[in-house]
């Protein structure tokens, strides 16, 4: 970085050694793994998810190789289960207290439950930090593990402060929030005795992503503009139609906008990662993820249609054709129909879980991983092993609170 401004005395070692990451995972094999795992989740009332998550990571880690070596995921489903049970033991009383105090406090004064909401937000951020720590300490590359120190609570407080700012600015400071939080996380990440850091800048992400952010907000902006133009009066019919059209275009454009933003974000994130002298680059194009989001939408529509057809078929089968005028009441009164709804709903959730894991986990991973290049990897050629294993409590919290994040 600091030599860039000055004229070098001798030509730099051009080109800096670069090694492309390779993803070699077989999609069919992954699909089989996820389908079987989802079936087992159903039989085990969801408890198989910890083993499925482990199998998914083992698959993804072991098929992503850098310089001929793939990392190994050494975590176990059992650890995730124990982490979850621990988290449950801590969260359940809090949930209950939250519920009771929340109702009482809300009765006394509106917004009184805000401190509790804040508490849960902090817990969620703490969980994200600790979950990354767990995953890193279970990642081994060339016989040396990654690890992480730093405080999950210190991170959570930073995250909450930035979230407040983000809300106040309608997301304008989001890039700086991401950069600041990632800087905190990465400088506490290590590969053996090689310390990580993050050099991505908020301004850089803003420069690459502002147009997507503006597009995502366009209905609000246009809506406000129309309101101001008409000084709060009812909109003329022509303007209402224009606004309707804007909303329609926005809905169609949203997967593109979101896909482009995610791609920009991934590329920025990878390009900012450092471990000692080792740095990374990504050539992920902004269009790389559109298709995946559209496929997920397509599957969602299909699954919902199937669900509707299933419900319709079952209701005719159970209730017969008969008088259609009181169909709604009769549907609600029938226990068999409740069971049918339950089964259909479960099927819908499970099918969507499979779709999400294949497209938004595996396929996104495959594209993002294959876009990455490591520079000066030789700086990691003789790194001394260091670092202790962390517990899976964070992952447990993340599961208990249903927060996603890395």
């Amino acid at each position, binding site marked *: 970085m600091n030599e860039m401004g000055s004229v070098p005395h001798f030509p730099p070692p051009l080109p800096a050694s670069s090694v492309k990451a390779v993803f070699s995972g077989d999609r069919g094999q992954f699909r089989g793994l996820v389908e079987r795992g989802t079936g087992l989740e159903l039989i085990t009332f969801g408890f198989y998810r910890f083993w499925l998550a482990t199998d998914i990571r083992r698959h993804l880690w072991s098929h992503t190789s850098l310089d001929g070596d793939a990392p190994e995921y050494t975590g176990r489903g059992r650890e995730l289960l124990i982490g979850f049970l621990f988290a449950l033991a801590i969260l359940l009383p809090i949930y209950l207290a939250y519920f009771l105090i929340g109702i009482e406090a809300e009765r006394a004064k509106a917004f009184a439950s805000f401190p509790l909401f804040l508490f849960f937000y902090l817990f969620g951020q703490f969980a994200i930090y600790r979950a990354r720590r767990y995953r890193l300490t279970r990642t081994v590359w*060339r016989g040396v593990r990654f690890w992480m120190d730093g405080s999950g609570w210190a991170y959570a407080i930073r995250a909450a402060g930035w979230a407040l700012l983000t809300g106040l600015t309608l997301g304008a400071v989001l890039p700086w929030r991401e950069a600041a939080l990632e800087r905190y996380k990465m400088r506490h990440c290590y590969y053996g005795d090689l310390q990580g850091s993050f050099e991505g800048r908020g301004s850089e992400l803003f420069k690459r992503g502002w147009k997507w952010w503006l597009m995502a907000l366009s209905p609000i902006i246009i809506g406000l503009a129309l309101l101001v133009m008409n000084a709060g009066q009812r909109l003329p019919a022509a303007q209402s139609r224009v606004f309707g059209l804007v909303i329609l275009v926005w809905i169609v454009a949203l997967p593109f906008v979101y896909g482009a933003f995610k791609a920009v974000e991934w590329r920025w994130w990878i390009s900012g990662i450092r471990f000692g002298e080792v740095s990374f680059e990504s050539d992920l194009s902004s269009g790389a993820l559109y298709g995946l989001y559209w496929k997920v939408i397509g599957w969602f529509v299909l699954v919902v249609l199937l669900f509707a057809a299933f419900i319709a078929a079952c209701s005719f089968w159970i209730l017969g054709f008969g008088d259609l005028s009181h169909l709604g009441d009769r549907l609600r009164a029938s226990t068999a129909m409740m069971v049918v709804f339950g089964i259909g709903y479960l099927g819908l959730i499970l099918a969507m879980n499979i779709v999400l894991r294949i497209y938004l986990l595996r396929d996104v991973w495959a594209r993002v991983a294959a876009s990455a290049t490591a520079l000066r990897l030789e700086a990691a050629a003789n790194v001394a092993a260091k670092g202790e294993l962390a517990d899976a409590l964070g992952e447990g919290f993340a599961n208990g609170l249903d927060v996603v994040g890395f």
Partner: protein
Amino acid sequence: MADGGPETIPAAPRPGGASIFYDGTSSRRHSVELVLKEGLEISENGTTLAIWPFADIRRADGVAGILRLSCVTAPSLARLEVRDAALGAALSA
């Protein structure tokens, strides 16, 4: 870095080439020869780095086509990557 210069970082694994050993204390890549005696003898340029008793050897997750092994009585992260299919088959047996 010190003992071999930049040439020690090949861009891709040599198919069927020597086995690779990571001793679990550093990320240094050792190109090793394997000798099957009463245990699996792992040596680099004539120096024995480790002897793994056959009964203690376990299979670890690895890239397809490469047999990655660990040993319960060695440092927990020590890994041996066998890139020779015939030898891999002999060890798996």
